C-alpha cells in the first residue's frame, strides 16, 4: 500500500505536480531522500511537513495510507 505526498505553492510548480505516490517508505527522512531523488530542486526551498494534516517537526515513522504534505511558508489572508 502506498503513501500519498502532496506538494503546495511553489513546490507544486517546482515538481510540476500536486501529488505523487510512494511505496516502501519507512519514515519522513527516507521519504525526503526519495523525493529529492525525483525532484532535486526541492532541496533549495524552505518548507514544513504535515502528516495527516498535522505539522511534524523532525523524524516520524510513516505507515501505508498516510498522507504527507510539503508546505512552503503560508501566505493566507
Amino acid at each position: 500500500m502506498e503513501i500519498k505526498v502532496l506538494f503546495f505553492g511553489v513546490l507544486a510548480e517546482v515538481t510540476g505536480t500536486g501529488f505523487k505516490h510512494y511505496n516502501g517508505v519507512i519514515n519522513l527522512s527516507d521519504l525526503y531522500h526519495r523525493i529529492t531523488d525525483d525532484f532535486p530542486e526541492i532541496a533549495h526551498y524552505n518548507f514544513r511537513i504535515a502528516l495527516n494534516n498535522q505539522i511534524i517537526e523532525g523524524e516520524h515513522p510513516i505507515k501505508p495510507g498516510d498522507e504527507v504534505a510539503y508546505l512552503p511558508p503560508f501566505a493566507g489572508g
Partner: protein
Amino acid sequence: MASKYLIEGPVTSVEISVYLDGMAAAKDTGGHSFFLGQVRADFLKGKIVMAIEYSAYESMVNTEADKIVESVTSEFDDVRSVRIIHSTGVVRAGEVSLAVMVSAGHRQQAMQACSKTVELIKERLPVWKKEIYEDNSHAWRENQ
C-alpha cells in the same frame, strides 16, 4: 469544493449578506466586526499586481480553521459567532479574498476577536498565493 471555509474566486457581498441575514435571529448579539482582505494592486520592481492566485490544502484548512474558531470563541466568551471565508483560485486587484465576520454581545470583544482571528489565519492557514503581474509573469509570496 467541500470546505465551508473556502470559496472559488472572490468573496462577494452575497456571502456577507448571507452571514448578516443568518445573525438577525441572534437576539443576544449587539455587535459585528468584519475584516475584508482585498487584493491590492502593488507596484513591485516595475510591475503592477493584476491578480493573486490562491491555492489551499483543503483538508488542513478545515482542521486549522476549526481550531482557530474554537480558540477564539474560548478566549472571548462574549463572542457568538466567527465566520471565515478565504478565496481560492484567481482574485483580481480590487476584489476581496478574505472575509472574517465576528459577532458578539458587545463591541469590544467583537473587534478584538476579529483582529485575533485575522492574525491566526495569517499564521496558521495552509494557503499560498501567487502574484500575477501585468506582463503575465508571477511570483510566490509569503506572510511576514
